[in-house]
């Protein structure tokens, strides 16, 4: 945490070059969050700029009581939530209906039930994910409500703990775990469905 103090102090003294370094350091984190939360591609870069402007305006208020990355994530999260609220986008959603739909879709589209299919079709090499499956995953991920996408991003791309995600989003740890579990299960079912479908077509 203290490693960041000299850079922050330089920025507070008006050094814009230091702020440019700061942006380059945290750009990845902000981009991940904004790109996953905001689906409208044309607004993403401007929102990223707004996030850094807010950071610049409020940096003097940061007291080094938490990790700087957590504080940045909070600002990014709140900026995106404000944007989504203005656009009346879906933030929260009960995934139960989708989970049921996903299960029944797999049952309906196969000659036999899901259990009998499991273990019967070959999966591609474990480390490689095909372009087609990757695109499907991207579509499915973007169809999830923004809160689920955020939690998935913070966990899988930023490797943050449940506690840190809870601090950023203001959700209790139990909710974070629950959202993460349900979103991943839903995506896994979709992926399984896709693999089964590919095999069925062959």
């Amino acid at each position: 945490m203290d490693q960041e103090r000299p850079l922050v102090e330089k920025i507070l003294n008006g050094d814009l070059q230091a702020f440019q370094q700061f942006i380059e350091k945290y750009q990845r984190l902000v981009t991940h969050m904004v790109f996953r939360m905001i689906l409208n591609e044309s607004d993403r870069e401007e929102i990223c700029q707004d996030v850094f402007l807010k950071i610049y305006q409020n940096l003097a208020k940061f007291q080094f009581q938490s990790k700087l990355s957590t504080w940045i994530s909070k600002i990014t999260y709140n900026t995106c939530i404000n944007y989504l609220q203005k656009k009346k986008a879906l933030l929260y959603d009960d995934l139960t209906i989708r989970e049921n739909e996903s299960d029944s879709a797999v049952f309906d589209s196969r000659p036999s039930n899901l259990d009998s299919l499991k273990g019967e079709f070959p999966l591609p090499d474990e480390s490689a994910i095909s372009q087609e499956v990757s695109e499907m995953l991207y579509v499915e991920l973007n169809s999830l409500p923004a809160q689920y996408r955020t939690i998935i991003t913070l966990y899988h791309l930023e490797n943050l703990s449940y506690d840190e995600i809870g601090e950023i989003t203001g959700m209790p740890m139990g909710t974070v775990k629950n959202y993460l579990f349900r979103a991943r299960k839903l995506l896994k079912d979709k992926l399984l469905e896709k693999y089964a479908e590919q095999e069925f077509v062959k």
Partner: protein
Amino acid sequence: MNHLTDEDLQKYLDKDPELNKTEVDRHLKNCDQCRQNYMVYKQLYAGLADETGFMLSADFSESVVSRIRKKREKTYSFFESVLLAIAGLFSVGILFYFTNLGDVLLSVFKKNIQDIEPFLRGIGDVLGGNLTIFIFAIIIIILFGVADKLIFQIKHR
């Protein structure tokens, strides 16, 4: 052992210490169905950690800094104008205090008032009041308008 649940598999991939890893390893070795589920999860995890597609323009940091610089310059120019205005008023005040410019201007003002008197008298008559009060009222309204505009600009900066 029963088949592994989704929760078990997610915990296994999350390296959750609560889970008995050895038991899951053994089960995965012997159960095709769970192994397949595990493989799908593994692919999913790989996909979720994939960083492809998160691209900003190459000059992103420069554009943010340039926005800040422009904002700063705007703020400076505003304060500069305020300071100039204060300095200007102060100079005029000094000039009025140490010279007879005030009397000269007042006589010019009175002369002009007399010139436009016929027109203003009409308005004054309509208002039924003193013409001087009417003129001062207009000046005060203008001053309030200017002050209000300045306050609005400061608040919304």
